[in-house]
């Protein structure tokens, strides 16, 4: 396996870590107007993610840095090509962060309602934009001879990409529901059980739609699925989803969250398989950004790999430790929002 392939997998795993971790707190944001109906419940929901959401967001920053370092051309093409979408994504992430932080600082109803709305809209918009961006990358974009994409914002809104956006939203809702069921009690937990079921239907519908639209509109997605081995990813994902449904029905909340996270991993692996060895496939295949024409020097990749192989286990270790320290149901003990 070449160094560039190792980095393709490594960045894929970093982004999957982001999708799993920020996935649940984005999902919590998308759900909270519905699952938490009064002020006490909303405070409970916010405090369930309070100690960890900052750290979850760092997975995005680290993935961005790793992409920049390992595949500078892919980073430059996607970020400049999807310019306005990226700006909107940043705006959404900013709005939700300040909504989390400043909501509890005043008691006035209009103040809290405003930030509650900001938290919900920012979270939903961010997930949809991530999904739509990924959908367009999977489908392939028209890249100009100078390496730029000039399709603008409207060019990104094709049915296949939107179906991937909805799929991403479904997964975030599932992650968020599974998290809330674990961390809350009472009416919030009851509603989160309901939203989890809804999310499962949304995922199923979006998955079928994405497959159909992909076949008609984004055929390159199936290029790598000529071999039987590649089918392992979607098949295993489907199996995990079945286990998820069983755990959900049996109210095995910890297992449900685990399977939900594994489902995100499975979906990400499926997307990665559909992409490889491209990073940004172009409509004119000769202009595609691939791991071969976009990777950094072996010196830089080797060095970074050492940083990653030493650093990431430590990161995962202390992240797990902190989750463990905050395990159990949300406690409102004075240190919080």
């Amino acid at each position: 396996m070449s160094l560039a392939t190792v980095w393709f997998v490594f960045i894929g795993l970093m982004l999957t870590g982001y999708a799993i971790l920020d996935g649940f707190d984005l999902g919590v944001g998308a759900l909270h107007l519905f699952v938490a109906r009064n002020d006490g419940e909303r405070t409970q929901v916010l405090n369930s993610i309070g100690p960890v959401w900052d750290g979850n967001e760092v997975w995005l920053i680290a993935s961005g840095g790793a992409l920049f370092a390992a595949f500078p051309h892919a980073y430059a093409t996607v970020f400049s090509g999807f310019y306005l979408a990226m700006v909107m994504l940043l705006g959404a992430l900013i709005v939700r962060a300040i909504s989390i932080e400043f909501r509890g600082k005043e008691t006035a109803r209009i103040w809290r309602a405003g930030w509650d709305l900001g938290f919900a809209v920012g979270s939903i918009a961010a997930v949809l934009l991530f999904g739509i961006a990924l959908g367009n990358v999977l489908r392939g974009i028209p890249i100009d001879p100078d390496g730029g994409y000039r399709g603008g914002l409207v060019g990104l809104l094709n049915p296949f990409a939107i179906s991937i956006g909805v799929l991403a939203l479904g997964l975030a809702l599932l992650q968020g529901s599974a998290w809330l069921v674990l961390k809350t009690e009472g009416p919030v937990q009851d509603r989160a059980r309901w939203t989890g079921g809804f999310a499962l239907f949304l995922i199923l519908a979006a998955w079928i739609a994405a497959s159909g639209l992909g076949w008609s509109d984004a055929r390159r997605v199936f290029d790598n699925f000529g071999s039987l081995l590649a089918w392992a990813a979607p098949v295993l994902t489907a199996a995990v989803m079945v286990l998820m449904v069983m755990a959900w029905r049996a109210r095995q909340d910890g297992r449900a969250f685990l399977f939900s996270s594994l489902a995100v991993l499975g979906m990400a692996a499926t997307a990665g398989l559909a992409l490889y060895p491209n990073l940004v496939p172009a409509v004119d295949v000769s202009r595609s950004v691939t791991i071969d024409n976009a990777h950094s020097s072996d010196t830089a990749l080797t060095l970074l790999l050492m940083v990653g192989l030493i650093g990431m286990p430590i990161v995962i270790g202390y992240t797990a430790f902190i989750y463990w320290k905050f395990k159990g149901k949300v406690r409102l003990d004075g240190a919080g929002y």
Partner: protein
Amino acid sequence: MDVVQLDRLQFALTISFHFVFPAVTIGLAMLIAIVETLRWWTKRDVYDRLSVFITKLFAVTFVIGVVSGIVMEFQFGTNWSRFSGFVGDIFGVPLAAEGISAFFLESAFVGIVLFGRNRVGSTLRWIAGLLVFGGTTLSAFWILVANSWMQTPAGFKIVTDSSGAQKAQMTDFFQAMFNPSTLPRFFHTVTACYVVGAFFLMGVCAWYVLRGRGSDVTSFALRLSVAIAFLGAGGMFATGDLQTREVQANQPIKFAAMEGVCQTANGVPLDLIAIPPSQNCSTGTGLGISIPYGLSAMSDLNPNGQIKGLDQQPDQSLWPPVAETFLSFHLMVGLGAMMMLLMLLGVFFWWRHELEKHRWWLWLAVIAIPAPIIATEFGWMTAEVGRQPWIVQGLMMVSAGTSPSVSATDVTISLIGIVLLYALLFFLWIYGLTREIRRGPELAPGLHASAPPVAVGPPEDQVTPATGKAGR
């Protein structure tokens, strides 16, 4: 304006805005680490209350630093894609290393510092404080490595990739990482951040004393911050000297613009206050106060030493904006001198046991809260404006680094959005800080402040079960 100007304006705006927050968080994290260590060691309640108070100021600032930092990380790709392609092999490495080795650390343990007070033991809380401090300073190191490489590139070769574009490729990691300006820049910038934190706490404590809200917490915090601010202000001159010498050696044109030296000459005076030279040097520095032979004596340790002027580069299109470089440098140094003066007085009053008696000095300390932040901004302007017209000194022009597919309209739209959103962020930051400062640190159990009733305020940190509202 063309797209290059708009891109520059957007980058200048976002980076100037962003840097305020890491500067304050790095400084406050250093204070948290010190106070937490004292709390852990002595188990005294006063350190506990001070640590909780600083943590609250830290929290409000940290979140805005994080979100404005994501914008920075994305912006190289969105607005400077050709720059990103050119430098990715080298520039990306410290950015990725920062994420993995530092940013994860601080963000993960911030959770414990902010939320874990009642959940974890004393030792873990202390270690978390130290790790947040270590993480923020390590973060600064990696980011400054990346910036320093743009100023004084080293450890690379230029290659042509498969698409025919040129790019810089790393040949020696340690040379690239410890390029000539990395360490001077790191020491100068990080000391500046510690000064920012110390001035912040000092001003807040001075305000409490002025308002009659002095307590055991503010009394200790005032002395701690005066000590650090004094040492830090001295450190700024030492590290600043180091860095200016480095600039003189490695970026001589920037140095000439900073000091306003047009013609290479011997026995050059040091301008303290002056009108900067015009861009083409048709008029030199004027109407000012200067020390004869001062610049030669300082830079060369010889009053008749030679100082190279802007004329060493005959092509004027390769000069930075002279007046801006000169002014930002001199304003930084001037502010630094005033801060040093304030701290000399502070230490003198402390020695005389009069630290809390001179109201005018306390008022100056309150007013001085933004002074080191503004000085730091001027310092960065000197560094970045002085590098123009290069984006990577000597290797790539700013105009060659933009994104070809991003139009002036795109950048105008994003710029408007960013201005509006950042105005909101700034307002919220000030609001959040004032709110925490009004509430103030908790008073010692059974102790009442010698203050009007308003000063005591609502009891901090009491959770009302109905709303679950709690101060953070």
